[in-house]
C-alpha cells in the first residue's frame, strides 16, 4: 500500500511521538526556556491540573517577544502563551497531521488521549521520519553516502 494510503489507514500512535514539555501557566518563562533547552524541544505545552492543554508557547513566539522586550523572560507563561493549540488524537489517521501542517501552518501538534489529556507531541519531524521510513532505499542511502550529511541526532525538534 503506497504512502498516502498508509497515512489514511495508520494512526497517529504509529508515529514516533516526542515526550512533551509541559508546565502550568504560572511557570516563569525563564524556567520554560531552560527546560526547552535541556529537552532540545521548541515548545512548551501549558496544561491544567488534569494534564489537559490550555495553551502553547513556542520558540518562534519567543523570537517575536524578544523584538519587543528582553524582560518578558521573567513573566509567567500564561501572559505570553497562545490560547489556541493544534491537536490530534492518538487514534486519528496520520493524514490528519499532514492536513494540520498544511492548512494551519503549524510545526507542533499536541497528541491527546480520548479524555483530552496530553500524551505526546508530534509534528514536522515525526512526519518526515514517517515518510523516510517508507523509502529507506532513497533516504538512508543518501544519509550514508552524503558527505555533507552528519549523523542522526545533530538536529533538534
Amino acid at each position, binding site marked *: 500500500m503506497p504512502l498516502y494510503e498508509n497515512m489514511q489507514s495508520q494512526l497517529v500512535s504509529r508515529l514516533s511521538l516526542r515526550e512533551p514539555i509541559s508546565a502550568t501557566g504560572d511557570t516563569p518563562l525563564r524556567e520554560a*526556556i531552560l527546560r526547552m533547552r535541556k529537552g532540545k524541544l521548541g515548545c512548551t505545552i501549558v496544561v491544567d491540573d488534569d494534564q489537559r492543554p490550555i495553551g502553547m508557547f513556542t520558540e*518562534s513566539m519567543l523570537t*517575536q517577544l524578544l523584538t519587543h522586550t528582553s524582560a518578558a523572560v521573567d513573566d509567567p507563561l500564561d501572559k505570553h502563551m497562545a490560547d489556541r493549540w493544534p491537536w490530534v488524537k492518538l487514534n486519528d489517521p496520520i493524514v490528519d497531521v499532514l492536513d494540520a501542517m498544511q492548512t494551519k501552518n503549524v510545526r507542533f501538534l499536541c497528541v491527546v488521549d480520548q479524555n483530552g489529556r496530553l500524551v505526546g507531541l508530534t509534528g514536522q519531524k515525526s512526519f518526515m521520519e514517517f515518510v*523516510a521510513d517508507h523509502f529507506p532505499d532513497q533516504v538512508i542511502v*543518501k544519509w550514508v553516502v552524503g558527505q555533507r550529511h*552528519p549523523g542522526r541526532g545533530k*538536529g533538534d525538534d
Partner: protein
Amino acid sequence: MLGTSNERPDDLRNDPLEKVLAEEMVAAIQHEPYVTVTAEATVAEAIEKLAGLHVACVLVEDGGKLVGVFTDRDVLDRVALEHEAMRDRPVSEVMTANPVCVHESDSAAAALSVMAVSGYRHVPVVDLDDKIVGIVSPQRVTAFLRKYFTDR
C-alpha cells in the same frame, strides 16, 4: 527507527513516490524565497528579520556564500536569556556554522534525508560554487509531497 529495504512490505516497493524522490531534484521543491543576513549583522538585526518576516531560519552569507544559519533554535539556546548582552554582538558568534546543506542538483530524497535522519528542519540549498540559491523547509517538502498526492 529506519528500517532496511528488506523489511518493507512488498506493496511499498511499487509506490511511485519512491521514483519521484529518487529522480526529482531538490530544485523541484520550492526553495525560494529565502532570507539572508551578513555575518557582520548584529544578533538584534537577525532576530528582527526572523520575527518581522515570520521565518524560522535566516541564512548567513559572506560574499554570497553560505557560512551559517541562524534559527529560532539559536535564539532559544544562545540568546534568549542573554539577550541584552548579546543583541549588539555579530550574528556569526551565535549562528550554527557550516550547516548541513544540499545542492540544487541533489535528489529530493537528499533533503528529506537531512530532515529525517540528521534532524535539521531547514536545509540550505547551494549551487556548485556553494552560492546560496534557497532553503528547503519541512513545510515545503510537505507541499511537494502533497502536490504529488493531488496530482495522482
